[in-house]
């Protein structure tokens, strides 16, 4: 009798699992990044990072009883708010995505948040929008980011420059929300620390010629030129023109400029320059690189952040037991922060199990995620130096 009871109980639970399996959802998550435009050389790896997390979850078969997660890519263009909004609208209305991993650049991210995410009540987590303005934007609790705000980067930059004994700099920034936000937050922090900014001049991306900008920057002078731009775009154009005309010998590069491309373009010409970008500790980075295993470039900027953004969305869904944004938006802070079992990258299956059993997790992920304030990463920065044509790690902040 006892055996029969146990047996039927086992059978029922099996059937239950099978039923769940057959009813399991196909959850679509939008991956909206600028596949064309100023950061088109960074975005393919970012998308790969996010899709890696989705594949990991799908393969585990543990999300809400075996749900399958399908990424749907859309092009944010990085610069064209209209095109980005239309692409996001299509994701939500035509493809029926449950959440958005993206967007990338701050301007289009703000546009999608206000025009698509809020009206439709869709959660979005950006891996790379760093404008300070997004911290205070109305978001109905739907917007998060796994990269830190540039208000923090401005302070870190000031520290790096002050420690190098530099207190007079010229600043040029790419003329958009990211560049302007970073330049302003840096200038405020730098001047508060006793430094002086001789000029803060915008440059347009993708333009033919930067002699005018470099002429003005050189005239204003300074010990170092801060280039708050994009390496694929005007940023490199400005550096090239400044080096060629002998206007500046050393530079300081914030996150948009740190890329293999920079060393490839300028080699030893930028020796003595400095920079920083949000980057996890070596341990987390190595772990993530091993997880990726050479499938794509895991060390490219914002790739681990993209993995984490996608992972947070799916973990929050599991915690809420629902793929509906209204249900899981409130769970994102819970799964990202303590208390709970720390979850490394590649341990999503374990995290899903703990959540399914009603436990707590503290998602660490690929970047050591810790969400603060209005749902943005606190951020650790890797300080970068340039020696003999190589990019070297000069510390962390």
């Amino acid at each position, binding site marked *: 009798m006892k055996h029969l009871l146990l047996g039927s109980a086992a059978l029922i639970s099996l059937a239950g699992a099978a039923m769940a399996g057959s009813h399991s959802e196909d959850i679509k998550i939008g991956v909206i990044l600028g596949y064309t435009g100023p950061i088109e050389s960074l975005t393919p790896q970012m998308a790969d990072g996010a899709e890696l997390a989705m594949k990991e979850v799908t393969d585990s078969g543990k999300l809400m009883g075996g749900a399958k997660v399908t990424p749907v890519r859309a092009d944010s263009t990085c610069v064209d708010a209209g095109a980005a909004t239309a692409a996001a609208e299509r994701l939500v209305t035509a493809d029926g995505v449950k959440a958005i991993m993206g967007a990338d650049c701050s301007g289009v991210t703000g546009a999608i948040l206000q025009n698509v995410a809020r009206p439709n009540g869709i959660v979005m987590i950006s891996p790379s929008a760093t404008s300070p303005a997004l911290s205070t934007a109305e978001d109905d609790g739907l917007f998060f980011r796994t990269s830190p705000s540039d208000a923090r980067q401005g302070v870190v930059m000031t520290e790096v420059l002050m420690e190098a004994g530099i207190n007079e700099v010229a600043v040029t920034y790419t003329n958009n929300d990211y560049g302007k936000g970073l330049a302003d937050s840096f200038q405020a922090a730098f001047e508060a620390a006793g430094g002086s900014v001789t000029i803060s001049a915008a440059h347009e991306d993708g333009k033919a010629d930067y002699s005018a900008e470099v*002429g*003005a920057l050189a*005239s204003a002078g300074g010990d170092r030129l801060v280039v708050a731009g994009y390496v694929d775009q005007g940023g490199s154009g400005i550096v090239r023109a400044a080096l060629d*005309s002998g206007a500046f010998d050393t530079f300081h590069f914030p996150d948009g400029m740190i890329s293999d491309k920079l060393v490839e373009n300028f080699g030893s010409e930028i020796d003595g320059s400095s920079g920083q970008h949000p980057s996890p500790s070596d341990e987390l980075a190595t772990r993530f690189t091993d997880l990726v295993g050479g499938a794509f470039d895991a060390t490219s900027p914002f790739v681990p952040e993209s993995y984490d953004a996608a992972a947070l969305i799916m973990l929050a869904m599991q915690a809420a037991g629902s793929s509906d944004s209204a249900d899981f938006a409130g769970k994102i802070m819970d799964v990202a922060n303590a208390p709970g079992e720390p979850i490394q990258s590649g341990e999503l299956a374990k995290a899903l199990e703990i959540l399914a059993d009603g436990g707590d997790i503290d998602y660490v992920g690929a970047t050591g995620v810790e969400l603060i304030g209005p749902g943005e990463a606190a951020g650790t920065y890797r300080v970068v130096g340039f020696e003999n044509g190589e990019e070297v790690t000069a510390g962390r902040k």
Partner: protein
Amino acid sequence: MDVLNALVAFANFVLVPATAYGAQLALGALGVTLIYGILRFSNFAHGDTMAFGAMVTILVTWSIPLVFAWLQFNFPTLLFPIADWVLSPFGVAGGPLPTALLALPVGILVTALLLLGTDRVIYGFYRQQRAKPVVLVIVSMGVMFMMNGLVRFVIGPDDQRFADGARFIVSAREFKAMTGLREGLAFKTSQGITIVTAVIVVAALFWFLNRTRTGKSMRAYSDNEDLALLSGINPERVVAITWIIVAALATVAGVLYGLDKSFKPFTYFQLLLPIFASAIVGGLGSPVGAIVGGFVIAFSEVTVTYAWKKVLGYLMPEALEPSGLVQLLSTDYKFAVSFVILVIVLLFRPTGIFAGKTG
């Protein structure tokens, strides 16, 4: 001494870069203006034609070392020494000139084939229909998108560096050491080549248009199509030669621009704006106008937004030294400057400075 410093600073940040940029714009605008004058439409695909020509040249540049190695291996006695001698002034063999110059003729040839092909398949059809110029403009936009995609498909959307040889004729640091001045003057090889090549190309073009029979028939066709046809000028020949010249101009302009800055398809697309501004300011259809327009646009972009602090700092007595930047307009407005010039020219001289065609 201070006057010299001021002059050098001015030359380094205004005169030299604006002259090189102006020469690049002038070559681009010449192509646009020729098509407008002879084929009677504004060719929006010109920026991407430049990108295509530069792309072919880059690919050939990259393959030159391979050809060189192959010659060395297979023909060590006769052909290799000749190739060695031909290559010696170029970067690939350690010389000062960029190897891309050697690859340029191939780039021009392939681009000419592409343009002739486009003309046969696309523009020729609309010419036969006697389509209005505005239709051809839209058609050229379609061609622009096709070329845009083609270039990105072949070489990718990224930056490509293909400049080799000596970077500088005089670098800022060498100049300072040489003269003992506080200001440096950099003169890049690419800037020197740009200016010299532009002069040669422009001279050759004017000689061709004014002195040769074919050039004269092209001008006749441009002035009055019907009259030209009546006097026995073969229109297909004029059109074909125009496309070949445009291919040469576009490829030269694209390669010079790429050598001076860098090659990136997106930037070439963006070049369309200043190129059209140059052509219109100078007078669409007028070759002299295109050259003048190119320099007007380049110099206005650089001078109006230049911060004169440094130059004035050298010239003024210490007490009067400016504390501000002495900048007429912030660099944000440099494109506004070209547009203002464009608007003024269109208001007061709608045909451009050198009275081109109106429509």
